[in-house]
């Protein structure tokens, strides 16, 4: 486990936790690596939400269970966190927020911090979050300018007085924080200065823009909605048509219609919304329409746990839609992955005329990570649309299974697309031979897709004897665990293209004497796909499905247990 400092801010919905999370991450980033994540209840007001901010002098992208410094913003959040505090934890807040028995049992220290009083002194109780922002900035000995700048930016539309009051509130907190006697052992670093703090949601949105998205039709569903909102905010500047569809069925059909007309379109949803889109996926399959579908998973079945996390929709995506047709499923781990894989999703969809899924989860989209400077390639904006000739055939049988894709109004030909089985022209057919030819043509694209397989990322020694495998958002925590373990023959393989699976994955597995797979679902869905498609049985299947991500402590313990 890395040397790090874990702050947790605990309050209720509506107390502005997300705002302070962003402000703090931006400010901390100048001197330390920082990762933050939030866990929220499915409600607009009340309940208990927390934000975790983890600070380190080395790259940190993982959730830690044990809290070093806990800030209580109200009086009914303490009891939920009793198993996350110990004798090293310092708890800040008002005396009335504390349950003395819990405190005594944990052996934690309490330090009174009257945020509301301090805020009132600065002009209004409304500034209490800014006081807290200042306090933590002081604790970490951050440059005060690093705190003032984001405040000015955040309140730029407000009056000068409000800005001044917030800055005063920041300084009040800062002085207290700086004066606080503390044992912070992490050292500052300036490597991260040119990094950027972005959320998983923003990574997917930026990736989509870099992949040429110019159309998004979606229906809101947590936690997939963020991407719709992000693209809506950027839509005016980037010429993106953004439409809130009447339902998910409309969304996927609009998306396919937009691709047919020549656009690059995205839909974003979560598992339940995607379940409604399945017929559309099948439509994309037979019409050989490109499509890009982002699914931020949450625990099901049914409505499940709307604001929590899970990786249990891999099977849903791999098997979605009736009939047999190829598809691609990409699962980002880091925010770089989020940008680069989403960008590539558009390219792959256009090139191979198949549905491409970007599979994330609540933990991924709602967390903030630092991303190093990234050079975006123009390559993935390449269009595969052809100008049609009078004899154009949309479903022409070719050597490589790919029929050049025309669009209506571009060229002298006609573009006929059919969800019925069709001949080369796109006309309905019930000819059995044509059916077999067309089915074979569609399925043969999987071989082409595998030729361009996105390689997995191996972390740790190349001559490993023990191997951990995972996919999606478990990347950060497993990377940290493997990089800080004293087991020198242990490596970690993060699979980014989870479907179709390439035989190279089998080679990685075969090199190891023992293999473990970590998944946030109950049935080890990727392990089962590996068994089915690569004929390798991974015995050690570590799963979690209570709605929360793996913590670094859990992973460290499991590694010791398994290897």
């Amino acid at each position, binding site marked *: 486990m890395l040397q790090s400092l874990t702050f947790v801010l605990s309050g209720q919905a509506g107390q502005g936790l997300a705002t302070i999370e962003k402000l703090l991450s931006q400010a901390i980033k100048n001197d330390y690596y920082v990762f933050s994540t939030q866990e929220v209840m499915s409600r607009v007001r009340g309940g208990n939400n927390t934000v975790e901010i983890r600070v380190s002098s080395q790259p940190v992208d993982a959730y830690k269970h044990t809290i070093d410094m806990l800030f209580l913003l109200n009086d009914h959040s303490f009891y939920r966190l009793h198993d996350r505090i110990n004798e090293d934890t310092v708890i800040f807040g008002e005396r009335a927020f504390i349950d003395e028995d819990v405190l005594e049992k944990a052996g934690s220290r309490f330090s009174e911090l009257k945020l509301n009083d301090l805020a009132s002194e600065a002009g209004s109780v409304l500034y209490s979050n800014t006081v807290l922002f200042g306090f933590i900035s002081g604790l970490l000995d951050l440059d005060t300018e690093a705190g003032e700048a984001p405040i000015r930016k955040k309140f730029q539309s407000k009056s000068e007085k409000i800005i001044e009051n917030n800055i005063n509130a920041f300084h009040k907190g800062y002085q207290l924080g700086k004066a606080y006697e503390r044992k912070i052992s992490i050292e500052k670093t300036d490597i991260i200065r040119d990094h950027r703090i972005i959320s998983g949601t923003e990574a997917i949105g930026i990736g989509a823009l870099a992949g040429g998205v110019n159309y998004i039709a979606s229906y809101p569903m947590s936690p997939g909605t963020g991407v719709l909102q992000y693209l809506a905010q950027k839509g005016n500047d980037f010429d993106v048509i953004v439409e809130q569809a009447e339902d998910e069925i*409309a969304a996927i059909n*609009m998306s396919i219609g937009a691709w047919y007309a020549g656009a690059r379109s995205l839909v974003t949803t979560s598992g339940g919304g995607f379940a409604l889109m399945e017929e559309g996926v099948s439509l994309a399959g037979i019409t050989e329409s490109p499509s890009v579908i982002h699914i931020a998973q949450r625990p099901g079945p049914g409505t499940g746990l709307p604001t929590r996390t899970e990786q249990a929709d891999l099977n849903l995506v791999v098997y979605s839609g009736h009939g047999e047709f190829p598809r691609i499923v990409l699962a980002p781990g880091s925010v770089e992955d989020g940008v680069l894989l989403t960008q590539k999703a558009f390219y792959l969809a256009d090139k191979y005329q198949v549905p491409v899924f970007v599979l994330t989860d609540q933990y991924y989209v709602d967390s903030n990570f630092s991303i190093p400077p990234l050079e975006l390639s123009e390559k993935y904006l390449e269009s595969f649309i052809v100008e049609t000739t009078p004899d154009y055939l949309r479903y022409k049988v070719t050597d490589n299974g790919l029929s050049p894709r025309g669009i209506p109004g571009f060229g002298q030909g006609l573009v006929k697309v059919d969800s019925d089985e069709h001949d080369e022209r796109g006309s309905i057919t019930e000819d059995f031979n044509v059916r077999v030819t067309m089915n074979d043509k569609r399925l043969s694209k999987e071989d082409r897709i595998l030729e361009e397989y996105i390689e997995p990322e191996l972390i740790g020694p190349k001559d490993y004897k023990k191997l951990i495998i995972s996919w999606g958002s478990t990347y950060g925590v497993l990377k940290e665990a493997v990089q800080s373990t004293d087991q020198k023959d242990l490596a970690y393989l993060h699979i980014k293209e989870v479907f179709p699976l390439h035989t190279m994955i089998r080679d990685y597995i075969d090199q190891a004497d023992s293999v473990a797979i970590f998944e946030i679902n109950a049935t080890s869905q990727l392990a089962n796909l590996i068994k089915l498609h690569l004929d390798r049985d991974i015995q050690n299947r570590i799963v979690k499905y209570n709605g929360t991500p793996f913590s670094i402590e859990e992973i460290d313990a499991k590694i010791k247990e398994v290897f």
Partner: protein
Amino acid sequence: MKPYEFDYELDIAWCPGCGNFQIRNSIVNALRELEIDPTNLVLSSGIGQAAKMPQYINTNYFNGLHGRGMPVAVAVKSANPELTVIAEGGDGDMYGEGGNHFIHNIRRNPNIVHIVHNNMVYGLTKGQASPTSQLDFITPVQVNGVRNKPFNPLAVAISLGATFVARAFSGDPEQTTKIIKQAIEHDGYALVDIFHPCVTFNKINNFKWFKDNTYYLDEDYDRSNVKQALDKALDIEKYALGVLYQKEGDASFENQLHVYEEDKTPIIKRTRNIKDVQALLKAF
């Protein structure tokens, strides 16, 4: 070869005497009279006998899923407003399976024509009730007769603010062509509900029934009067034919999109500059 004809023989799946043949001719005649080039037209349809129409008109088409002709059509039109787009299907396809899209696309007001073949019965699935089937109509499923009140598409459309609402009868190709032409020329959402007999599965609402139970609106009928139009639509003693309602001047869905406010170039003809995205990443 005339526009919209084929240079090979078609194997048409409609029954001899089906009203769909006449509807096809009316559509093709309207398109020819308006000199719309087949390469600039898109027909978007769902599933059903009516939704097979694109198979028999030689132009661009997207023959998609049952009920989903509208979402595809709206997306095509907004992605490339230079195209003429017609969404076409039957009463089950468009008012039943696609009912939610019908409602919400009226609210959007895309500049597309929505042609709905209304024969008050399901044809392709062999004779079950459709949303517009009349009360007491007996079918293999509704064995005791239809109990659900018939859906009134015109009244729904007018009350939701549709900007062009018309009804035609396939048995009068000349008038039907005229109505379709006006629908294509209308800038905004245009519903053309077309009565037509199903010769195989609806022996009640046959050619004679439609003839006897419809009338054309007068020459001097004021189509801009929404209350009168709603009255006409709600009157099911005898069904009015013609353009019941038209409102001009409402901006269409595409024209209200921010991307087309200053620049009419279809989004599909614009290019993304990767440097702009790079700058976005740097701005965090």
